[in-house]
């Protein structure tokens, strides 16, 4: 038993050093992950010392960081999305464990990391850019996507919602949460739910895809045009960091009255 205690103490020391290092490097996401591990280790240590059996861990500690889970979620969706949707997708298809609250500081951490060491990471989680090239509230994107996909015009929220619905419907999953998510999305696409069975039965993925494509066709042309124009402006006016995380709001006011 003392062996295990020794092990744990060593582990706790390592984790503390790790947290300190992460804090110094201002890597908030990593610091949080390490802190969580540290707390688990400390609890185990307490339990061992007082002679109790450590309670079986209720869920295995996630092997993938929050950042990576969001990345996978966005990759699956293939369009800008709100944290709420990313969390739901990650839960339903990727066995994700993120909570919305964990995403609040994510974008800021990403931006800080990019500004201290540009392109030091294989990918960044960025902000969608609005028509004034400022960051859109609560819309996440991936740095690997073309600029056209990372800007949002007036129609883009709807277009991206439909794109996401198609992506969700194309995933095969037996998970009940996946069915529920698809049902929720299908309800808001005209013609996607079976009228005879009401909105209660599980939606048929093919039907959802077909309906979403039909509505998408209505918006596609204008949205593609808006986005191409925005992307052109973003490429011409913004530096690398601003293209990923949006320009400060004040500097782009003039633009509004020119267009």
């Amino acid at each position, binding site marked *: 038993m003392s062996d295990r205690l020794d092990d744990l103490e060593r582990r706790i020391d390592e984790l503390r050093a790790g947290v300190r290092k992460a804090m110094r490097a201002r890597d908030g996401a990593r610091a949080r992950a390490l802190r969580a591990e540290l707390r688990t280790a400390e609890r185990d240590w307490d339990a061992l010392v007082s002679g109790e059996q450590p309670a079986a861990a209720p869920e295995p500690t996630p092997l993938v960081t929050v950042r990576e889970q969001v990345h996978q979620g966005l990759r699956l969706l293939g369009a800008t*999305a709100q944290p*709420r*949707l990313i969390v739901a997708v990650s839960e339903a298809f990727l066995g994700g464990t993120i909570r919305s609250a964990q995403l609040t500081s994510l974008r800021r951490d990403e931006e800080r990391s990019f500004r201290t060491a540009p392109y030091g990471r294989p990918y960044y989680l960025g902000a969608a850019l*609005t028509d004034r090239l400022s960051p859109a509230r609560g819309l996440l994107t991936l740095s690997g996507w073309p600029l056209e996909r990372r800007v949002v015009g*007036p*129609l883009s929220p709807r277009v*991206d919602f439909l794109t996401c619905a198609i992506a969700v419907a194309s995933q095969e999953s037996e998970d009940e949460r996946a069915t529920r998510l698809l049902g929720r*999305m299908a309800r*808001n696409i005209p013609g996607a739910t079976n009228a005879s069975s009401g909105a209660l039965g599980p939606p048929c993925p093919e039907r959802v895809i077909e309906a979403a494509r039909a509505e998408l066709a209505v918006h596609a042309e204008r949205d593609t045009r808006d986005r191409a124009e925005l992307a052109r402006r973003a490429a011409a006016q913004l530096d690398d960091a601003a293209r990923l995380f949006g320009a400060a709001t004040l500097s782009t006011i003039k633009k*509004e009255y020119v267009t």
Partner: protein
Amino acid sequence: MSGMNTQQRLDALRGATPPRPHDARAIAALAANPGCTRRALMDGAGADKDAAARHLGFPAPFGQSPFAITRGNVFESLVKADGCAELLRMLRELLGLPIAEVAYHDVENVGAHLRHAHTRALIDRAARDAQDAGTLYDHPLLTLRIAGHTAYLEPDVVAFQLGGRFHIVEIKSFAVIDGQADPAAVAAAARQAAVYVLALRTLLEELGHDPLQVSHDVVLVCPENFANRPVATLVDVRKQLAVLRRQLTRMTTLDRLLEGLPDDLTFDLLPGEDGRPTRPVAELADALRRTTARYAPDCLSTCDLCFFCRDEARQEGASDLLGRQVRDELGGVGSVAEALGLADGARDPAAGQEEIARLLRNAERLRRECLT
């Protein structure tokens, strides 16, 4: 009246504290009891009614509970998620919004200080050129002049392109069960939405457009039955609009209400260095009693001073306590004691009270017959 103008008198009424900004809830509450001079004066002066009530020892159990606020926010974000996907579905089903109309503008994307200017620009563009306009405007910021002060108002969503008119969308988290909702909650929501309609109409008028482009039908979104699934209904707010407009005009003519009051009257709490009020309670209560209140039981859900006024009405035995309907039936009879006196014949009806006295005596006779 001496040389002071209305604004100076109102500032004197309020005293040292800075004016309290009005929000839609407060403005809507004004319309709920238009006959109350006390409230009209305190709101006109921008006095802090809540602080006054607490200082007087009648704190109102007022304001929303944090749980209700959280619940409201969660439901609102659910309705607005993914580019207002749920809202679009409801507008399509309820109002026949064309499929192509999905343009979404989040006004909050600009900084807080620019939101009002941005709202103006967007609404102006929409009113001018309906072809190119957006459909949904999220988090707009409107203004309304209330007795010389600017109040900033935030409707939940402004929807356009429903037959070329603007609609105010109000998202509320009280449930509609089996097609029925709590009438008091619906009435409050309608009054609040009327404030937004008025503000938006004022904005359009300022921009030189037809104010009637704003529909008097507001879209009320509530959870349906016991699930969290939102459902939309149209609510006609013409009546609330008329009351509100009348009340606001009345507030701009506060000088008439001020005329009968002494010049040195003030509701100042004289806050000390730590911000605590130092004014003697009795003095403040006396100052407030100089203005007439019109207490009604509904005040309990809309006004910070409700307990103070109720206590006053109880001491006077006023018929106001019994609710508006009874008060109106008892027209001309001010107190409960007077009504009872008229009923058992202990008191002779004054001129103009003959009719109500006869009714009361009849009622008393019937009551006695029933009991014996």
